[in-house]
């Protein structure tokens, strides 16, 4: 993510959370937090607890984020935000947790007759292959809860559709035949089968590297008879470094009611 993208991400994040944007220039961004967002980001529970007890006037903070030091005024007070900064990652996490689950309807224009909307379960996940190296795969899966149709890149398709949180006029939703819970396990087993079909030479290679280093380590300590603390430390470190793992982590998901021809 480039600094400009970070800047635009921050702007959208605070707008979506209904914070007043006080200043928004090329190098920095000043926002007035709402009470909710102050609680979300500022980590000062005692202040809020005290305020609620005493019934004082809430005074949520103002924050300035500097996204480009060169362009921001000199001596400007604010947090310098970059891709690795803890604050940005806190906001990333917040964006994820504030909108982990969603339910939306297709905002169709069929005014004439009653339009049926079909239920879709959407799950966005990240699959990580990890050893001493790493790669991830982003997957967005949609499962139609009537006929069980499964669709990849579901999120990208959703971006093409007008969506609204309220059910549009002249619409009715069809009840799912597949229960959401079993829908989730269908998606889980689908993901696992996709992973199993993938090439896992990377894991074999990692184990081989691990084994090589372990042999060297054993050889290094073979003269030493008694239990050796550094040997154990090194051994654990090798496991942590090389052991291949696959993680499927949930990003977000939701229910989408879409017209028959939408997907």
């Amino acid at each position, binding site marked *: 993510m*480039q600094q400009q993208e970070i800047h635009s*991400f921050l702007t*959208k*994040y605070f707008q979506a959370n209904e914070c007043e944007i006080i200043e928004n220039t090329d190098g920095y961004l000043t926002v007035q937090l709402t009470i909710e967002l102050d609680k979300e980001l500022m980590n000062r529970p005692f202040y809020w607890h005290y305020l609620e007890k005493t019934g004082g006037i809430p005074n949520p903070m103002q924050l300035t984020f500097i996204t480009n030091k060169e362009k921001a005024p000199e001596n400007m007070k604010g947090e310098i935000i*970059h*891709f*690795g900064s*803890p604050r940005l990652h806190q906001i*990333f996490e917040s*964006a*994820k947790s*504030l*909108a*982990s*689950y*969603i*339910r939306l309807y297709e905002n169709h224009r069929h005014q004439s007759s009653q339009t049926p909307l079909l239920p879709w379960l959407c799950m*966005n996940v990240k699959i*990580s292959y990890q050893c*001493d*190296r790493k*790669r*991830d795969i982003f997957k*967005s899966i949609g499962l139609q809860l009537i006929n069980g149709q499964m669709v990849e890149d579901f999120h990208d398709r959703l*971006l093409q559709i007008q*969506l609204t949180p309220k059910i549009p006029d002249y619409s009715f939703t069809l009840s799912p035949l597949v229960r*959401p*819970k079993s829908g*989730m396990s269908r998606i*889980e087993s689908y993901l*696992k089968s996709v*992973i*199993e079909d993938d090439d*896992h030479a990377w894991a*074999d290679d990692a184990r081989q*590297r691990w084994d090589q*280093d372990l042999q*060297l*380590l054993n*050889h*290094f*300590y073979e*003269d030493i008879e008694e239990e050796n*603390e*550094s040997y154990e*430390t090194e051994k*654990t*470190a090798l496991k*942590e*470094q*090389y052991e291949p*793992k*696959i*993680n*499927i*982590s*949930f*990003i*977000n998901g*939701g229910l989408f009611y879409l017209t028959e021809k939408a997907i």
Partner: protein
Amino acid sequence: MSVEIEFDSSWQDDFLHRIENDGPWGNWELFKLAIGVEKHLVIPEFEGLLAPKHLPNLTPFPHQLETAKQVIENMNGKAILADEVGLGKTIEAGLILKEYMIRGLVKKVLILVPASLVTQWAIELNNKFFIPAITQRKSYVWDQYDVVVSSIDTAKRNPHREIIYQQDYDLIIIDEAHKLKNNKTKNYEFVQNLKKKFCLLLTATPIQNRVEEIFNLVSLLKPGHLGSETVFFEKYKRDSRSLNDDEHLKELVNKVMIRNRRADTGIEWTKRHVETIPIECTAPEKELYEAITTLKSDGDWVQRSAFSVMTLQREACSSREAVFYTLKNMLQRKENPTPAFEEQIQFLIKKVEAVQQNSKAEKALELIQKVNDKVIIFTEYRATQMYLQWFLKQHGISSVPFRGGFKRGKKDWMRELFQKHAQVLIATEAGGEGINLQFCNHIINFDLPWNPMRLEQRIGRIHRLGQEKDVMIYNFAIKNTVEEHILKLLYEKIELFERVIGDLDDILTKLEFGNIEDHLIDIFGQSCSEGEMRIKMENLSSMIEFAQTMKEGDSHAAAGNS
């Protein structure tokens, strides 16, 4: 499929609960933002470097990118980075660290560097790499922050040591790692017991170490890579310097070490201009020098302290203050000095007192005024350093002192004072290492170090990446003294200043002559007389000449065959 799949299902109940209760539901904009973020955080390939895309403030050189890639892809994140001085090892380490952080493989990092570099490292990581590195100030930083920069001397002491041992580090970076060559030291033991997944050792000089030192350094990085201690030393003699003779060992070491040389980088370096400035001294200075020289023929003095005589000679070439300081020490340290000894010293002190001016200092002043730009003066002696500071001040030239013994904050402060306010920095030898001064391009070698290798380090402080001007090196030598002779030998016989030491090493190792530093230390540190020094130097230079003709012969032969 043999890898276990961990499926995170902690969210399922929460989701189902919301379906049942019809909400609360999230905001579509935030939902899309979260996906956008994830797509940015996804690592598309095991290979390749993502870091450069995240570093708008940095344009790494090709050799630096290549090194980072090598370390991650072929060395599994455990490497000795041994580039020649000034090629940007810090940048390489920063790239590797950044890459691992982006990939989520490294979070907890400990960076151990010389005290003088702590702040500089933290600043570079923050500014160039957007890595929130913290310098160690209070003990709680170790568990509170993910990336901490500290000096090893602080880290190894309690209470820090205990807290550090409780941390599981993903990556440890050690700068100037050649200081860990002895496995009996506290520092070595400390580093050996750290918990680490990945490890980078940075040094400019591992190749010159003895086989034993190489073994210790590699074993710290990757125990067993060179075998166990017993097996290793059965095969290679402990004191052996035969690293380069043994192809197998060399190959093994090269698997964990990267050494870029200036010549290989393809970067256009600014030039070095070396000028030897012979200095005519005043009559009293000459008398002092000669009085010391004649000591040599005086019976018992010679036997016990040939070394002191040469020390005094060289000090006499630097400043009367340096001589005086040593004489005073000699007198104080001697138990029950004989009257003859005391007399001798008093005689020399008289000679010292007779000296009224310092010809070199006058010359330095003249040069500084002519250059009219920032200048670094290197001297071996603290007494000279203090004198020079006083002397320059008398002539309205601002200067700052720099010594290895300064605390970290003071070093940073002095560097900054020099950069922003003072015209001259006067450094003693220990100040030569670990400080980057590429905003300056004039060096005066006021006197010569015992170990001529240090000259390269001195020059390396300014002749490095980032230096935009040609570098001017002025070597001061008082005429008809040991100093002038040394300089002539170094300069004329082996063209030390113009070459980079690595080149000379290459030439010598080809013929198994050992390395240049060993020869030079022997010649200048162990010789009892100038005569001996000259003969040894002649030997060395003919060796180099011979090696060079051999090398050229080689390449001719190769060309002829093709």
